[in-house]
């Protein structure tokens, strides 16, 4: 049972192709696990067992007739509930959208369905991907399986929890200021925010048009590259989508990293902000591991973390308020308190300040590119603290802005997080690897080398099962 729950995408695909695993069996096993675990962990807004089993049977027929159309054929996945799945409500984890049924698949959903993957359901988020963790919404917030009463990160909380707890091997999240990478970091899984424009945003409820990314969340780096492969590509109906060739993201994954040049951005977590000592040590240790693997690691400086954060928050505030203005005018009581407060900030941002933030964005992008010249990638922190308790509102508010993910929403570069150890309390620690625009393949290579040199990704959370 546990083996199936924690099977990687790559292994499951191989077993299915060789006839050693039935997609229906895997689907049923995970649906049963969701039924047992979700009352404790609240990863799902709505499981979709009928859709899942129909798709699993179709995949099984294809395997039986020797048709293997993609690595994702028969692989279960979940969607953060701001991503449309035709015929199912996209609630955005909000009372406001509780009955908002999607009539079409999002572009990413369509990509996964075309690949033969199995839609298992809609996953919890912070309200409209910004307001959480909150206890005043129609659905409870997701719970981190590491520790059992801790914040799983957000806003793609359910995606992080479902993958970490073995309910799903793959999930999609969205990332506007770090929302794929935060739950991936706090749940000890792999989360990738590819280059802005690499993955279509069509059919995903926006938080901030110019910063939103959709990203894959998995338990291993190789799985993540396989999932991005299916999602990436130009979409003429998304004005932010880039018409650029999609490489083989796994092409370099088995190569070593001898001679690759990596910039170490320490001042983000030991200067601009000061990380929890366990986190700081884990990142420094990871840089040493990369050195031992043959990479040339040297410390570099980027602009101050606060400049990126101000830029990111001003743009999110302005764009999110423009999207929500009508709802805030007409149905303010249908929001949770935290979501409403965060979105409302945009009401006070002047147009000139928004434009200045966009001008600052161009400057920060240029300075970041200059600092990374000649490097293959940079290593830095993702979050600065291990997960706080979910019910500790004060601590959650304190750590909410303490993070190093926003810079790469501002610059649009690919940024991946992966497990890098555990705190003295047993909570996940993570590192972030950031590449040049369109160089996801190089990021995956370095991440995979680090992952294989450590054993962090092999640890499993202490799951509590609900007994009926």
């Amino acid at each position, binding site marked *: 049972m546990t083996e199936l729950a924690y099977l990687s995408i790559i292994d499951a695909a191989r077993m299915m192709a060789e006839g050693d695993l039935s997609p229906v069996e895997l689907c049923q096993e995970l649906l049963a696990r969701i039924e047992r675990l979700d009352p404790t962990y609240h990863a799902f807004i709505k499981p979709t067992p009928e859709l899942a089993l129909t798709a699993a049977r179709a995949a099984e027929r294809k395997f039986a007739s020797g048709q293997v159309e993609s690595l994702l054929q028969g692989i279960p996945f979940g969607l953060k509930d701001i991503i449309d799945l035709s015929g199912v409500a996209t609630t955005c984890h909000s009372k406001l959208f509780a009955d908002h049924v999607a009539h079409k698949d999002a572009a990413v959903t369509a990509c996964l369905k075309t690949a033969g993957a199995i839609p298992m359901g809609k996953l919890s988020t912070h309200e409209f991907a910004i307001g959480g963790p909150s206890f005043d919404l129609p659905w409870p917030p997701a719970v981190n399986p590491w520790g059992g009463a801790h914040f799983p990160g957000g806003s793609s909380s359910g995606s992080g929890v479902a993958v970490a707890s073995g309910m799903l091997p793959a999930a999609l999240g969205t990332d506007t200021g770090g929302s794929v990478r935060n739950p991936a970091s706090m749940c000890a899984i792999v989360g990738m925010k590819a280059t802005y424009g690499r993955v279509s945003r069509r059919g995903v409820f926006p938080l901030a048009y*110019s910063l939103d990314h959709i990203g894959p969340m998995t338990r291993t780096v190789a799985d993540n590259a396989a999932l991005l492969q299916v999602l990436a590509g130009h979409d003429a109906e998304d004005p932010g989508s880039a018409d650029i060739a999609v490489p083989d993201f796994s092409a370099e994954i088995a190569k070593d990293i001898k001679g690759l040049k990596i910039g170490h951005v320490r001042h983000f977590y030991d200067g601009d902000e000061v990380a929890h000592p366990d986190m700081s040590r884990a990142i420094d240790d990871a840089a040493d591991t990369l050195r031992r693997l043959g990479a040339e690691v040297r410390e570099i400086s980027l602009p101050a973390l606060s400049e990126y954060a101000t830029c990111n928050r001003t743009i999110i505030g302005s764009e999110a308020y423009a999207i929500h203005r009508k709802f805030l005018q007409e149905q*303010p009581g249908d929001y949770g308190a935290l979501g409403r407060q965060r979105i409302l900030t945009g009401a006070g941002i002047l147009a000139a300040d928004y434009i200045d933030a966009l001008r600052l964005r*161009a400057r920060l992008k240029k300075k970041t590119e200059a600092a990374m010249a000649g490097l293959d990638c940079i290593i830095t922190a993702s979050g600065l603290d291990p997960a706080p308790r979910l019910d500790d509102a004060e601590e959650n508010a304190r750590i909410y802005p303490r993070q190093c993910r926003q810079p790469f929403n501002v610059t649009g570069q690919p940024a991946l997080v992966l497990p890098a150890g555990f705190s003295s309390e047993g909570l996940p620690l993570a590192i972030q690897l950031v590449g040049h625009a369109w160089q996801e393949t190089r990021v995956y290579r370095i991440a995979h080398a680090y992952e294989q040199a450590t054993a962090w990704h092999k640890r499993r959370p202490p799951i509590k099962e609900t007994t009926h």
Partner: protein
Amino acid sequence: MDQDETQSLVTTLGLSQLAAERPGEIERALDNARSLAERIPRDLHWSDEPAHVFNANLFTANLFAAKAQQEPHS
């Protein structure tokens, strides 16, 4: 900002219902916005353009591509 100015802004923003139901929230939001604005560097030169600007080529290219995708194939 005094109470009259805040009230006038609330009316302009169309947020009277929210202000009546949840006093204090708009003031907090305005404080947050002010604090953000204070942190934006002001040494930008007028020639520093925003990160994304209207691009006629891109705009028409996207428009034609989207239209072509929507039209049924003959």
